[in-house]
């Protein structure tokens, strides 16, 4: 059976969302000082870089940007098995006393973010941790919410949300399948 | 009580009615023409052979009754079609005195499933130092004619020479377990590329061949006869062939497992496949089959070696050497030698009954299927197929290498001096 699929965001929509997320983060943080963006592997990383780039256009300052692989912090090894590890890369200066904004493509159960919080606590002691996501599709299993949301997309559990980004997939789009 | 075995094919040839009376073959009539007996057996489709004789059996009693007893071992023998077995001397105590061999002989008579001919040890305690009292064992009620330190090679050349000379006085034979000890220290499997890959200490063919070469030359020199146990390599077959051409009085045996299994089974590291001498290569298997077919190898002997479960359910290095063989021997010979056209049934009777009886000097066994001969018989269904189930074997042990395997041909009945020990494939 081929699942019905619908594109809910195109490249322009994604660019607008990134722009809005960038503005909101800067507003709430009263400027870029002390900010660190940490993209969660895989698609959170290019998103973080896009946000950093947009912020540079807005404020003409460089916000440090890093990558976080949370594979070893997941609690579902028994269910999902071992997977190849990705790079974790902290910007110079680390995360101590910084306001860390985690960036991910989709917020769903919240388990990825829980793992990311564990990973961050192994890497240092941020002053605060916030969360920015491109899509929030609901169905949380943990008391976790995003500080910045590009787009809320109500889904059923049976559906799948595919975020594709040019850096990884060669195209910018968000598709709901099923 | 007279019994008529109807429409049975002696040596797989033309069917006859065979009447047994008073422990002997009383008459042989054309099929369907024998007068009615007190008991009738319909044997159409079955082959009758002289009861099989095993020159190499480990019955473990006395000493390891947890692994096998004379009763359980002879039951397995009867179910495998044997009417006589030679019980190897490496028991505890060792069968190196008239007292021990007579005890084994008597226990065999009591158990009654087949004749048990004790093999006497060549040296006291199998220690390879002093000759055991070979003459006393020969003169005992057990009338020992075969002497062997099996499990251990009589490696001392002088001791071997003396043993070969000494047994001439009572027409005995030394059955040599040919294994040069220094070349096989700690050996675990056939030495070759596979042993190197598996990291298991190798048992090189030369360790067998060197002893065989030495012993046939010793036998020639002192004018005695020598028997080679369980030869396993192409080189050994070549040496025996050469020795026989030279007129040396040597006989040799091959086991069923060396006729069919190869060293690749060691890749499982399952000690069920650990045996001494080890399983060899496919080329060696081809050579022993050829040797058995052309008469270079005189007999098939089982080297039936029961081992308690814990001695096999462990890692390879800790596992004991040896495999069960009595209940699967004939099927292996049928599969490897008869169904491949290498041996006729008459030749099977020779290799598994007549020749071993002659080597062991057992006059009443291995006789031709003729009127007046003792009724030591086995009825075989050559077309039957069965699957080996270790739990269903009569042995106390379960270390068969053939578990689950389909076997060719089945023993239907065995008669010891006219008395059925096995009927319809079950103990009678």
């Amino acid at each position, binding site marked *: 059976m081929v699942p019905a699929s619908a594109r809910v965001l195109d490249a322009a929509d994604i660019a607008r969302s990134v722009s809005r997320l960038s503005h909101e983060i800067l507003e709430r943080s009263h400027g870029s000082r002390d900010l660190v963006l940490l993209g969660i592997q895989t698609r959170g990383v290019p998103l973080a870089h896009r946000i950093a780039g947009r912020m540079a256009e807005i404020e003409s300052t460089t916000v440090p940007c890093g990558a976080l692989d949370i594979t070893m912090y997941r609690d579902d090894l028994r269910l*999902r098995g*071992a997977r190849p590890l990705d790079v*974790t890369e902290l910007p110079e200066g680390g995360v101590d006393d910084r306001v860390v904004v985690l960036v991910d493509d989709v917020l769903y159960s919240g388990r990825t973010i829980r793992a990311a919080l564990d990973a961050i606590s192994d890497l240092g002691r941020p002053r605060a941790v916030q969360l920015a996501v491109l899509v929030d599709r609901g169905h949380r299993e943990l008391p976790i919410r995003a500080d910045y949301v590009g787009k809320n997309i109500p889904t059923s559990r049976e559906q799948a949300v595919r975020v594709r980004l040019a850096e990884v997939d060669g195209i910018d789009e968000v598709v709901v*399948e*099923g | 009580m007279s019994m008529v075995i109807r429409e049975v094919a002696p040596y797989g040839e033309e069917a006859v009615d065979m009447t047994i009376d008073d422990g002997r073959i009383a008459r042989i009539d054309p099929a369907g023409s024998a007068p009615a007996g007190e008991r009738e057996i319909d044997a159409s489709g079955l082959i009758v052979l002289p009861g099989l004789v095993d020159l190499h059996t480990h019955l473990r009693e006395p000493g390891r009754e947890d692994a096998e007893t004379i009763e359980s071992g002879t039951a397995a023998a009867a179910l495998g079609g044997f009417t006589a077995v030679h019980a190897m001397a490496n028991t505890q105590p060792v069968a190196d005195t008239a007292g021990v061999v007579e005890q084994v002989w008597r226990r065999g008579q009591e158990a009654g499933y087949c004749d048990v001919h004790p093999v006497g040890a060549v040296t006291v305690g199998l220690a390879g130092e002093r000759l055991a009292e070979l003459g006393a064992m020969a003169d005992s009620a057990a009338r020992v004619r075969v002497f062997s330190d099996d499990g251990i090679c009589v490696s001392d050349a002088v001791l071997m020479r003396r043993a070969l000379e000494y047994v001439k006085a009572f027409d005995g034979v030394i059955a040599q377990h040919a294994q040069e000890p220094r070349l096989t220290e700690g050996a675990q499997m056939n030495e070759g590329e596979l042993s190197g890959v598996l*990291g298991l200490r190798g048992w090189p063919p030369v360790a067998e061949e060197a002893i065989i070469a030495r012993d046939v030359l010793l036998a020639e020199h002192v004018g005695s006869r020598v028997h080679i146990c369980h030869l396993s390599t192409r080189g050994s077959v070549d040496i025996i062939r050469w020795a026989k051409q030279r007129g040396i009085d040597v006989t040799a045996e091959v086991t069923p497992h060396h006729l069919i299994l190869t060293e690749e089974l060691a890749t499982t590291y399952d000690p069920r496949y650990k045996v001494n001498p080890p399983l060899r290569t496919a080329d060696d298997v081809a050579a022993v089959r050829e040797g058995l077919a052309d008469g270079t190898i005189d007999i098939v002997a089982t080297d039936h070696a029961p081992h308690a479960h814990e001695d096999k*359910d462990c890692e390879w290095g800790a596992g004991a050497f040896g495999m069960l063989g009595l209940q699967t021997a004939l099927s292996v010979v049928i599969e490897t030698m008869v169904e491949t056209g290498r041996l006729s049934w008459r030749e099977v009777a020779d290799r598994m009954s007549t020749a071993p009886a002659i080597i062991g000097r057992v006059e009443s066994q291995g006789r031709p299927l003729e009127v007046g001969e003792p009724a030591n018989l086995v009825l075989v269904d050559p077309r039957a197929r069965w699957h080996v189930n270790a739990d269903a074997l009569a042995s106390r042990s379960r270390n068969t290498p053939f578990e689950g395997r389909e076997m060719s041909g089945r023993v239907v009945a065995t008669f010891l001096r006219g008395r059925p020990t096995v009927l319809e494939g079950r103990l009678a």
Partner: protein
Amino acid sequence: MIRHLLSAGDLDRDEAIAILDTAGELARATGRSVKKLPTLRGRTVVNLFYEDSTRTRISFEAAAKRLSADVITFSAKGSSVSKGESLKDTALTLEAMGADAVVVRHSASGAAHRLAMSGWTDCVVVNAGDGTHEHPTQALLDAYTLRHHLSDGAGDLQGRRVVIVGDILHSRVARSNVLLLETLGAEVTVVGPPTLLPVGVEGWPCSVSYDLDNALTGADAVMMLRVQNERMNAAYFPSAREYSRRYGLDRHRAELLAPDGIVLHPGPMNRGMEITAEVADGPRSVVVEQVTNGVHVRMAVLYRLMGALPELESEAGS
């Protein structure tokens, strides 16, 4: 993904590289001073050491603990448990204890294989050295070390020339390395006196030589194996002096290697026998790195094996 690690031959190229890559990322994590990852929290790893091998045991313990596994070490050395029965009995005990993985070192070749295949236990089995058979995690850490120096820490070892010297006959390190290095595309030559090369070594996926100088010339790496004194007493070679003259690595011989060629040794070293102190502690030696890399490689192995599933469920969209 494989279920057990019994032989280096169990690993195909992709699986081997995946383990090395994982080890690399774990090494970077450790570089960030993350001492412990929560990955195996609540799972139990049993180290079952029938043979005394402090360095391998400690390395596996450290690996399991850094992944937050519960670690139970069962060190049963000496003759009291040399009977085969106890391997089975211990396996049944482990099963009852709910162990998830067992790391086994045993003097019998095939012991790990037997433990994995006998039905005595459902645990994941990692071979930490079985008799004179194999030692696959040693081969992995050697490959990791070689890759780090010869291939910038990525990909395979295509075309790299590695020479393994010494008692090939009794060496589980040599067997595992020949298999793994061949899988990774390296050209391996084993060198030793003919008495210490196994029968049938011609069939192995490597070249064979009795001439160390010739084999070393231009090679990218040499791996020196420990030579036990008892081999001399068993007449495998006439004397320690003759052995080290013909098959020992001194500075002069080490200079025959390629300019950046490195020297490995699985340890413990016999300085003055198979390797001079000068080379063992010299600039080409990577012996200390091998130890460090061992922990990361074993973490990677535990992670991948204990995370191996028959089929992976996919959680869409996360």
